[in-house]
């Protein structure tokens, strides 16, 4: 029999990444405080996938849970990376937008309600193409509404990462929490290789991918706020911290002057060294925050 203390700490830590989308959202809330909305028993699914011979899912890959975090009202919206790559369709998009808008109404009415978006997604679901793209535009609009009243916190734990249009949703949020196993960018490596060639981006070069899109780099250069270990406790306490902190003084996507200057001074004549850029943009404090 193995003694409990013989189990290495990394096994005992309770991995967050190993949880599915629903379990991830549940893990964030105060015990017994939460309830899932428009869940699988309501059977609201994509009307477009069956028309194309693709099996739909009763939650359309989007889990919405409302409850309390550190005693404060909050809603978590979690994309299930294992269903259609976490892609945004008409229904999953509408669920996100509705939850964000309802949080805005409550916040305006005096009950600030934070939103936590757990994003594992490649962006638009191509089988629903234009309705997916339209939904992402609405998600961005609704995040921008809510963040005036309550924090909108993005968690990218891994391992799908956050790409495509949903990277803009992350961009307009109040805070971004990432693990080392998480990635964030507009275009994934395969898409760039496909569109611009292997010389531009070798999608099989794992070191290159992580040096550009990885959580350590994104937090290091100030494009995300907190780098945490892959554990339920680690991610849970980062979320609690930002729920309690409220909204930031300035949002990153409002810092247009700062980033415009940064882009103006980049040497674009050859590829940019990620580490050198991280040094150059390094944050003003130890946590990697520019604001």
């Amino acid at each position, binding site marked *: 029999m193995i003694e409990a203390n013989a189990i290495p700490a990394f096994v005992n830590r309770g991995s967050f990444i190993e949880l599915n989308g629903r379990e991830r959202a549940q893990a964030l809330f105060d015990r017994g405080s939460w*309830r899932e*909305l*428009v869940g699988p028993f309501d059977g*609201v699914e*994509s*009307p*477009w996938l069956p*028309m194309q011979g693709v099996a739909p899912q009763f939650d*359309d890959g989007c889990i919405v849970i*409302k409850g309390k975090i550190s005693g404060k009202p909050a809603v978590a919206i979690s994309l299930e990376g294992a269903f259609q790559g976490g892609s945004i369709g*008409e*229904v999953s998009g*509408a*669920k996100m937008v*509705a*939850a964000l808008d*309802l949080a805005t109404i409550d916040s305006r009415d005096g009950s600030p309600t934070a939103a936590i978006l757990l994003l594992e997604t490649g962006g*638009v679901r*191509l*089988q629903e*193409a*234009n309705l997916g*793209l*339209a*939904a992402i*535009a*609405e998600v*961005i*609009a609704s995040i*921008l*509404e809510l963040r005036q009243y309550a924090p909108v916190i993005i968690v990218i734990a891994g391992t799908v990462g956050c790409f495509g*249009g949903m*990277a*803009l949703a992350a*961009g*307009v949020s109040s805070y971004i929490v990432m693990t080392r196993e998480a990635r*964030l*960018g*507009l275009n994934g490596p395969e898409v*760039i290789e*496909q*569109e*611009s060639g292997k010389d*531009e981006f070798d999608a099989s070069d794992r070191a290159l991918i992580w040096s*550009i899109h990885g959580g350590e780099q994104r937090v290091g*250069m100030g*494009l995300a706020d907190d780098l945490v270990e892959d554990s339920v406790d680690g991610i849970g306490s980062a979320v609690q911290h930002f729920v309690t902190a409220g909204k930031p003084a300035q*949002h*990153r*996507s*409002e810092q*247009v*002057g700062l*980033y*415009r200057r940064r*882009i103006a001074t*980049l040497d*674009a004549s050859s*590829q940019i060294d*990620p580490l050198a850029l991280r040094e150059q943009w390094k944050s003003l404090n130890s946590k990697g925050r520019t604001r």
Partner: protein
Amino acid sequence: MEESQLERENAMSERIGLRGKAWFQALTGQNEARKGDPASVLTADAMIGDERALFLCVIPNPGGRFPCARDGQVGLEEGYTLAHRVREALNADKDKPKSQKRAIIAIIDVKSQAYGRREETAGLFLAAAASSDAYASARMAGHPVISFVVGHAFSGGFLTHGYQANRILALDDAGVTIHAMHKEAAARITRRSVEDLERLGQQIPPMSYNVHDYAKLGLLHQLLHVESPLEPNQSDVDKAKRAIIAAIVDARKGPPDLGVRRESRAAQKSRKAGIAARALMEHQWKKV
């Protein structure tokens, strides 16, 4: 030999963004970027009806600093420049009553976002987000934000430049395409042939590349037929101006959100599942 090839390439990339530039020039009388801005972003304050509005357009820039953003894609410089110019108008009109905040008119002919390594390294997602944020913030502050799609409006390019508008107008023309991804890439990723994709588009409106099918989704304010979409004549320009002015009036009357895209008659039909999901969410929300 080399020179003629370069000329050919330049001529080709000119054609891609030609519509945007032609309409920008027709509506504003100007065709050059402002001092300090990249040549790919045209912005101007110009009269429409009896009010002054801000017009913005992204065009190809063969001599641009970023190789993957030279053919009319929206890249780092484009995102932050659009954001900067929109925010400039937002700040200038900050203390004006809503009825006097200037209209912001995005003329759209964008290929896509820039697919480059430099862009990813420097965080293109934030540049795109900053521009989206600026347009949406202007809309929420009471500026009528009108998008006028005169050519292509693709994926991240459209999210960055135009999709946050109160009202979207599009030319009724075969050269106008609004979509999440260009045909070849969408076919590759969904493992279909381009022909299959086109056939599916006829049955499934959100997948279609035809602007008439896009109109069925209820996201458009108006489709506008003109005689010469590539090189607008005077009557085309007059017609477009009248439509833009009407859209400005309509936007000022409505709420500053995107609700109109769900409430339109076409959306009630084509977005039934999403609308039902929203209604159910509203119903269950209060019970927690």
